[in-house]
């Protein structure tokens, strides 16, 4: 009886989850599309205290033969998205802890970490434009000029917030930020709810701006929340990961990888994900109206940071392939994701498969996780960095020579 009451109470969760930008939250209406899910699922707790190096899961992590994984930096709670300065400084943004870190290498190969900004609201978006570091913290846009020359005494940032005019909503308001080959800044504007009615010219899109905040252009519509983007090194097309909605089933919908062939095309949210029609928000739309994903990345895996491999260190078969960090699921049983995968592309840019690359964060037998990979970054020497938000660490993957 208790169980049935509980189930009934919980069943309403799907439709009543945040409707941030909407009129006052509607009472839960009707049953969610999938009534078999465990309605007691909740986001996993982030860890914002320092994890000691002997507590890191490095020895449990696995990479393909010929590769090697080392701890690059640790003691950086909540480290997420990474970008690299012209002098090789790695900058890492965060969400809950509100900091931006700068990580430099000492002569002996160890690293030194400084906090260059703090007290910010989810400063997840970091990108270098020349010598200047851009940070987007909901919904402020801050520019730290000549940052690498001033790591010990970071300058007061130039506040560009007004010029960019980003929406203020916190939910899905954190940004991924990257500089395009055309000199424009590319970012996501996520939907401010799980799934709801919203302005499709304002939310659930990818947008680009000139670095001064002018000339906003919608690059893609109907992408629920992308926290990973990169431009193809040859075609210069924009590619992006996307996070699917919650509470529609353990196995649906899938997270997705998108190839943006032309600016402004519609990728289907909230109506469709690929050929999958949303059980509540399809509105009678035919999914073939929309651009199809380049690949499906698995249900609830939280596919986040992605980069094309442009280095010379890894074997030739990895050149221009897409490394994708999957932070790992909460709205699913059993756990999925918690790894780094490679999307393999053929000469025409079609994805021919998605293969595991870095595994061992997920303990299937125990249904627990040892870490949460959030972003990948290709260093100039060709090594691949992987940030682990849960443990406040960055790993470095190299290939033996």
């Amino acid at each position, binding site marked *: 009886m208790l169980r049935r009451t509980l189930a009934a109470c919980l069943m309403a969760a799907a439709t009543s989850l945040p*409707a941030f930008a909407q009129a006052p939250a509607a009472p839960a209406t009707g049953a969610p599309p999938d009534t078999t899910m465990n309605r007691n699922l909740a986001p996993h707790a*982030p860890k914002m205290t320092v994890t000691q190096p002997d507590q890191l899961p490095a020895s449990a992590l696995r990479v393909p033969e010929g590769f090697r994984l080392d701890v690059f930096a640790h003691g950086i709670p909540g480290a997420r998205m990474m970008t690299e300065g012209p002098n090789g400084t790695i900058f890492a943004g965060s969400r809950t802890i509100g900091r931006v870190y700068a990580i430099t290498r000492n002569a002996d190969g160890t690293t030194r970490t400084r906090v260059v900004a703090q007290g910010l609201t989810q400063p997840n978006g970091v990108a270098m434009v020349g010598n200047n570091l851009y940070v987007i913290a909901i919904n402020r846009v801050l520019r730290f000029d000549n940052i690498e020359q001033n790591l010990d005494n970071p300058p007061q940032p130039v506040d560009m917030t007004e010029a960019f005019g980003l929406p203020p909503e916190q939910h899905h308001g954190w940004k991924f930020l990257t500089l395009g080959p055309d000199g424009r800044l590319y970012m996501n504007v996520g939907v401010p709810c799980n799934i709801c009615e919203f302005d499709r010219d304002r939310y659930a899109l990818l947008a680009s701006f000139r670095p001064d905040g002018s000339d906003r252009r919608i690059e893609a519509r109907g992408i629920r929340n992308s926290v990973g983007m990169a431009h193809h090194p040859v075609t210069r097309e924009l590619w992006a990961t996307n996070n699917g909605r919650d509470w529609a089933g353990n196995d649906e919908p899938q997270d997705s990888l998108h190839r943006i062939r032309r600016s402004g095309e519609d990728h289907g949210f909230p109506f469709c994900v690929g050929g999958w029609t949303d059980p509540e928000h399809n509105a009678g739309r035919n999914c073939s109206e929309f651009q199809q994903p380049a690949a499906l990345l698995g249900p609830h895996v939280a596919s986040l940071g992605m980069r094309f491999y442009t280095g010379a260190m890894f074997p030739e078969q990895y050149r221009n392939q897409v490394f994708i960090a999957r932070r790992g699921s909460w709205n699913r049983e059993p756990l999925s994701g918690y790894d780094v995968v490679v999307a393999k592309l053929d000469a025409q840019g079609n994805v021919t498969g998605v293969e595991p690359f870095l595994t061992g964060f997920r303990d299937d037998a125990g249904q*627990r996780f040892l870490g949460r990979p959030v972003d990948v970054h290709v260093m100039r020497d060709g090594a691949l960095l992987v940030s682990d938000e849960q443990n406040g660490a960055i790993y470095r993957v190299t290939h033996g020579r």
Partner: protein
Amino acid sequence: MRLALLAAALCAAALPTAAQDVARGRSLAAQACASCHGEDGRSHTPGVPTLAGQPAEFVTMQLILFREALRPVPAMQDVARGLGDADIEALAAVFAAQPSGPPEDRAARDAARFERGKALSARMNCGVCHLPDYAGRNQIPRLAGQREEYLAQALADFRDNRRAGSDTQMNGVMYGVTDSDIAALAHYLSHVE
């Protein structure tokens, strides 16, 4: 239910706390926290929450938000400013181990408001994350028996974007909720046993 608890326990990152950490946590709590939050972690100070029985990860997270000036409560920022991560984890372990319970000065239950708050909580799915007995888990706080005026203030702060948790869920949940509904929720949750 048991499965859910088991899952929650499995999700929790293990926070090893040695005996000397416990002693240090107790000493810190007595010096820095007890005068407002109560010797036994049950607050008798209006506007100050009870910490006894709060999940350790919740207390840890909030102390970090205070220290980083991300949760703007001046009295707590002064306390948290000098705390290292190990101090914070030690304090959290102390409060998590204290038995929870309502404050001595709790007002009498108003049957009508209690029932209204109960219905609202069911409709708003508070028990999904906070668990059906509102004991909380991991980063999600215990609500059962918390001080009523503190709960009302916290809910209004989430609604009005003066506060966020470790994520933005509560801001979304509280969007557009009226003062009167907040009062009923706070009354119900403070009287749930």
